[in-house]
């Protein structure tokens, strides 16, 4: 079969090569034997000791979560010590008996304890049964521990928010990792019982603040009682966050909203730094970071005021007349209008068979762009909208960052809608109707925005055209290296408009406050420019505001910046169901601005403060 000459010689070669294989086999096996000899004979006694004491349990040491400060180093979130109860199932002889003992002792829900004990996971690794125990409960368990093999009390740190409800939507809250989260790749190094951020910056910066768990080896005797413990690996505390907000301004903004539903966003127009972001109603993150009962959770989720909804970044509202700001920029830039050309307003705009009303039934007469903004003339904007067309309008709206998420470091930000012909085709599979352009021109119809987007928009106008990404986190402080990593301001884009255009608009906005629709925002200490808006909730209404049920009343908008000459703050206020922007929202914006102007000179910015090494002190328990 195989007879060729060359093959034959190779076949002969085979024997020499087989010899190599044999030698190789012996060598490799000898190496294995040597290794086993080393393990079993030389180190045998050591391993025998280990195996006899292999009643060693590894206990995870939870890391302290990074702290959160405001821009001036005021503590917003820290950790306080608390006790947790762990059970190592391997050491539990009678599970039902233990459940009985624990529930008798601590008044726990037996089905909950049973659920935690039967959850998937190693029997050797202690599992957390209860956290945030009182000192009393912890001592109670300690004193009965000999009757409960496998039970262990650990001192851990617990998240705490000293400010309670203040800035709750920004900070968010933490909670035990869910089984769904455990499956995700970003949580690979975590385990059942790990605490992770579930909302707010706690969630979006979880990776930074989480830290790394350490472990402790605990030797237990045959009955599962702890004999000796030694730390194998220290836990690494998470990194600290410095937010851009000024908690004093934040508190003022929240108090201004009071019991109403709404949002206030204040930011620095020159960097996009968020100075305050209030959303009402709020919640207490201390409550949510604890183990909630199902009933408590249902109550929060079903609350009609939707307290878990961050109205500043997640609430989508028609912008109403505040939308006239980007429309005015568009009109000047596309040369649809010159600053001096006028439109005649007789109180309505006829398009086809339909008459589009101005808010002022008697009309504004001849108005130029300046007066159209100052008095919020709808007919002027119906006209320019009609002339520019929806797609041109959409383009400018998008340049200002509307219709897309701003990229602020908060989970689940919403994008709002800037409609266009292609948008409608895609979203509704319908053609754009010319009449819809008219509604869109005054920020009604399909147009929706978030208060955060509007604050960013007015900031962009204030600084002369740079659209910064609103920023909530100013710096991350590395706990291991001590390095403070400052995050830079990120310009998202620049509005391609002449400086002249912004000057015209800003002049008009200043007059809105001094003699236009927002005189209630007029301040004696600072010049303010702004624009009111009223977002229709229900299309058809008759009679005076007071006669309408509150839930059908319009939303009030006011967006503003100050001082007009060199803007330092941009504000957007949205008050749900509060009627007209000028009456309801403008005074709130004024309060925020005045507060800020009074605050600023007193306290240096966080960066210079930090660079001098003058960092705020840590609470004693967190490192």
């Amino acid at each position: 079969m195989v007879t060729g000459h060359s093959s034959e010689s190779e076949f002969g070669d085979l024997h020499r090569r087989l010899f190599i294989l044999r030698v190789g086999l012996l060598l490799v096996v000898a190496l294995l034997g040597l290794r086993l000899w080393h393990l079993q004979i030389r180190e045998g006694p050591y391993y025998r000791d280990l195996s006899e004491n292999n009643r060693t349990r590894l206990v995870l040491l939870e890391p302290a979560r990074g702290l959160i400060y405001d821009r001036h180093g005021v503590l917003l979130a820290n950790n306080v010590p608390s006790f947790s109860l762990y059970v190592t199932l391997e050491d539990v002889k009678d599970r039902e008996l233990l459940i009985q003992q624990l529930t008798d002792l601590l008044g726990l829900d037996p089905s909950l304890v049973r659920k935690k004990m039967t959850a998937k996971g190693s029997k050797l690794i202690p599992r957390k049964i209860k956290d945030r125990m009182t000192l009393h409960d912890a001592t109670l368990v300690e004193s009965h521990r000999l009757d409960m093999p496998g039970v262990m009390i650990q001192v851990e740190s617990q998240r705490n928010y000293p400010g309670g409800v203040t800035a709750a939507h920004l900070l968010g809250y933490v909670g035990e990792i869910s089984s769904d989260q455990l499956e995700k790749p970003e949580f690979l190094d975590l385990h059942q019982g790990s605490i992770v951020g579930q909302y707010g910056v706690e969630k979006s910066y979880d990776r930074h603040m989480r830290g790394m768990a350490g472990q402790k080896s605990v030797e237990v005797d045959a009955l599962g009682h702890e004999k000796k413990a030694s730390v194998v690996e220290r836990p690494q505390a998470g990194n600290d966050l410095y937010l851009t907000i000024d908690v004093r301004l934040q508190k003022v903004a929240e108090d201004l909203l009071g019991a109403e539903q709404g949002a206030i966003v204040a930011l620095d127009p020159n960097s996009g730094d968020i100075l305050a972001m209030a959303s009402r109603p709020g919640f207490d993150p201390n409550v949510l970071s604890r183990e909630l009962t199902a009933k408590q959770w249902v109550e929060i989720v079903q609350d009609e005021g939707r307290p878990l909804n961050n109205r500043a970044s997640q609430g989508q509202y028609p912008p109403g007349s505040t939308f006239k700001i980007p429309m005015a920029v568009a009109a000047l830039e596309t040369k649809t209008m010159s600053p001096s050309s006028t439109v005649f307003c007789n109180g309505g705009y006829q398009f086809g068979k339909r008459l589009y009303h101005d808010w002022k039934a008697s009309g504004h007469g001849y108005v130029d762009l300046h007066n159209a903004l100052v008095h919020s003339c709808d007919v002027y904007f119906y006209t320019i909208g009609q002339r520019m067309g929806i797609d041109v309008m959409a383009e400018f709206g998008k340049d200002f960052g509307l219709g897309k998420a701003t990229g602020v470091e908060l989970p689940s930000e919403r994008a709002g809608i800037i409609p266009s012909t292609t948008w409608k085709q895609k979203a509704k599979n319908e053609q754009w109707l010319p009449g819809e352009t008219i509604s869109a021109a005054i920020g009604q119809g399909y147009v929706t925005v978030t208060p955060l987007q509007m604050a960013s928009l007015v900031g962009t106008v204030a600084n002369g055209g740079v659209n910064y990404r609103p920023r909530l986190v100013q710096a991350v402080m590395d706990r291991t290296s001590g390095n403070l990593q400052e995050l830079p301001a990120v310009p998202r884009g620049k509005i391609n408009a002449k400086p002249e255009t912004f000057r015209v608009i800003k002049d008009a906005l200043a007059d809105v406050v001094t003699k236009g629709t927002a005189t209630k925002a007029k301040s004696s200490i600072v010049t303010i420019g702004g624009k009111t808006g009223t977002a229709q909730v229900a299309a058809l209404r008759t009679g005076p505001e007071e006669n309408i049920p509150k839930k059908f009343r319009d939303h009030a908008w006011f967006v503003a910046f100050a001082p007009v000459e060199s803007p330092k703050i941009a504000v957007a206020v949205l008050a749900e169901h509060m009627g007209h922007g000028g009456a309801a929202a403008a005074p709130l914006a004024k309060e925020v601005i005045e507060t800020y102007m009074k605050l600023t000179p007193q306290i240096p910015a966080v960066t210079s403060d930090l660079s001098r090494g003058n960092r705020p002190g840590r609470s004693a328990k967190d490192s």
Partner: protein
Amino acid sequence: MINRLTEHRGLDSFDIRYVALIVAILGIGVLSIYSVTHGHQSGTAPYYLKQLIWISLGAAAFLVMWASDYHHLARFAYPAYAVILLMLIFVLFEGRTSKGAQRWIALGPLNFQPSEFAKLVLILVLAHYYSKAPRVGWLQRVIVPGLLVLPGLLLILKQPDLGSGLSFVAVYAAMLLMVGVRSQALGFILLFSIMLFPFAWEGVWGSLHDYQRQRIMAFVDPGYDPAGKGYHALQSKIAIGSGELLGKGLYGGTQSQLKFLPEGHTDFVFAVFAEEWGFLGVLVLLTLFVALMWLSLEIASKAKDQLGALLAVGIVAMLCFCVVINIGMTAGMFPIVGIPLPLVSYGGSATIMTMASLGLLLNVKRKRLSLFY
């Protein structure tokens, strides 16, 4: 007359020493599986009983492979490889997943692992190739067979089954050694591998599942997460080491009995055995393995043609690789890659495949071919 001849022809290849070695190793396996799983199971049939069923099926496969003609088998090598590749593709989409790897095809109540059988088919393919193809130049010697190996290798790594993938490479390497790679070719392969290494590393490391990466990390850095991924390695070393010279005796392995050692009946069965029988027991088992492979190499050297010799060498290389890697990983010498100890670990596909391979090896020992030759 004819009957007598057939009988004689059969027996002249049937080596009772060889069979005795196999039976001895199988016995050690069943004993260890029984020891570590008895009393821990309820409901389904005990593992040791199921293993005995696999062994009976394996014995049947052994006899079939021994009785057939390996030349006939080699002729089916390519089609068989094609079928195996299709199965591996099927596994990728429809396979049953266990512990993060998608390796099994469910056949009613049974799970069948194509990658195990792929090893034997690959040996047939390479042996067949080398015994037929002209082998001048490195293209025919190295590249073409390398390309034959590649699709199977990639599909298996994708599952991912690092252990089986590496045994593919081992078989290929052993075959290369046997057909004789010239020094230039060796140099070329070396250079090529070095050049490819960064890409290959990226590819292999990137295709690994996280748990595999962590196991390798645990090996490189023994202190890495001892409660998690390093746990196997640590517990396995404690089990083996604490066996000392004489072992703790049957059922005496506290490590394994108390379930400190996971997967004691499958990949870590060696640690169970080593704990219970000590270094002396380990020496006996190693000797049995060496003797088996020694006899197999004997068969290779006395094979009457190249195909036979190459088949034998391929099978020995595969067995040797599995034994060394498995014992090495339980003893903390290598990262944990998930490879069973041949004839000892619990498992249907592996047991049947290994026994079939050994049957084929014994087949090579025949001096004369069948009646119809």
